[in-house]
Each structure stands twice: as C-alpha cells, then as structure tokens.
C-alpha cells in the first residue's frame, strides 16, 4: 500500500528514558515533516527535511533530534523524556508545496 507509515503506534515509557519513532513513506515525496499534536489537538510543526536536508527546525528542546537517512525515511529521537513530551506525534510527507499525507500518529505517554 502506498502510505506514510509510523512505528510504533503507541509508546509508554518512563521519565528520563530515550526513545525513537520511525517514519517511512513510499509516495516518492521529497519533503517529510514531524508535527506534534497536544492534548487540545493543536498541531504544530517541529521539523522538516527536503531530500535529506533539514529545512525547518522549530523551537523545540534539543532533546529532540530528527534524522533522515534517505528521502523516504525520517526518524525522531527523543532523549531524557519528560512528562510534558506526552503527545501524539505525526509524520507527514509532501512533494514540495503539494498536498500532505499524514501517518497514523504515535501516541507517546511519559509516566
């Protein structure tokens, strides 16, 4: 199936741990994104990569580090997790300024 796939779908972890979320798209898009959706459902961009190059790096704690090994993959690594990091993290992809396709989201719960 053509899609944006994220793993894992759910992640429950303790404060202080390090975790990674993976994202892959097979749509041939050149741009990938990470968005964070908070408890009030507000969506805010965190990072964007175009052809493996970081082009958007919003004001997020440097505990969050994206990595794009190739233009089909964009991973998000989070160090020293805090309670406030609990949210749903969405990966998306697009071709330049075209329509976005979102992954199904990763619900991160820090306890």
């Amino acid at each position: 199936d053509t899609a944006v796939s994220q793993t894992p779908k759910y992640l429950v972890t303790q404060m202080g741990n390090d975790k990674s979320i993976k994202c892959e798209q097979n749509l041939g898009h050149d741009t990938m994104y990470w968005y964070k959706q908070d408890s009030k459902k507000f969506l805010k961009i965190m990072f964007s990569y175009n052809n493996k190059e970081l082009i958007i790096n919003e004001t997020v704690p440097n505990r969050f580090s994206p990595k794009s090994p190739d233009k089909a993959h964009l991973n998000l690594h989070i160090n020293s997790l805090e309670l406030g990091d609990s949210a749903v993290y969405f990966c998306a992809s697009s071709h330049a300024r075209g329509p976005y396709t979102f992954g199904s989201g990763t619900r991160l719960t820090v306890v």
Partner: protein
Amino acid sequence: GIQVEQSPPDLILQEGANSTLRCNFSDSVNNLQWFHQNPWGQLINLFYIPSGTKQNGRLSATTVATERYSLLYISSSQTTDSGVYFCAVGGSSGSRLTFGEGTQLTVNP
C-alpha cells in the same frame, strides 16, 4: 508568522443537515489544505486548495485568496463526518503548514 482562525470551534448537527466551516488567515498564502481528523485520530487530506473551488462528493471547498478566507461545505452530513476539521496554510516560506485550531463537528443520528 501567519495566523489561522477557524470558526465555529464546535458544531453539532443532525444527520442530513448542511454546514459551512470557515478559515480566515492573516497573510497571503500559496498553500491551503483542509484535513479531517476522524475519531480514531487519523488525519485525512480533504482538499489542496490555495485558490478557487473544488468538489469531492458531498464536500466542497472554496478559497478566496485575495480576501484571505476559505470555506468548507459539507452537505447531507453523515455520522461518519464527525471529527475535527483543520484548515492549514502555507506562505512564501515554503512547504511548512500552519494549522488552525480546528472545528469539532459532531453529527448525531
């Protein structure tokens, strides 16, 4: 950055009713998209519509870029239309989209 304002914040309808959702934005845009987030959390792209009018089944959208607003029309609503509708816009800075706070739609049987 661009400000995006959606109205109404909440909308409750009976099945079969029609509705109009509005999105106002503060600056000129070259990218505007409407999304539906269903009750299971999936974000589905409804329209890519930086200008003009498009229709897809019971849904249609119109963007009047010169007046900085977009409208999403839902006709003959069904319970499966429930969820949150987001408008998202992008300006000259590239592919980044700024999202509005959404309209929570509930369609009752």
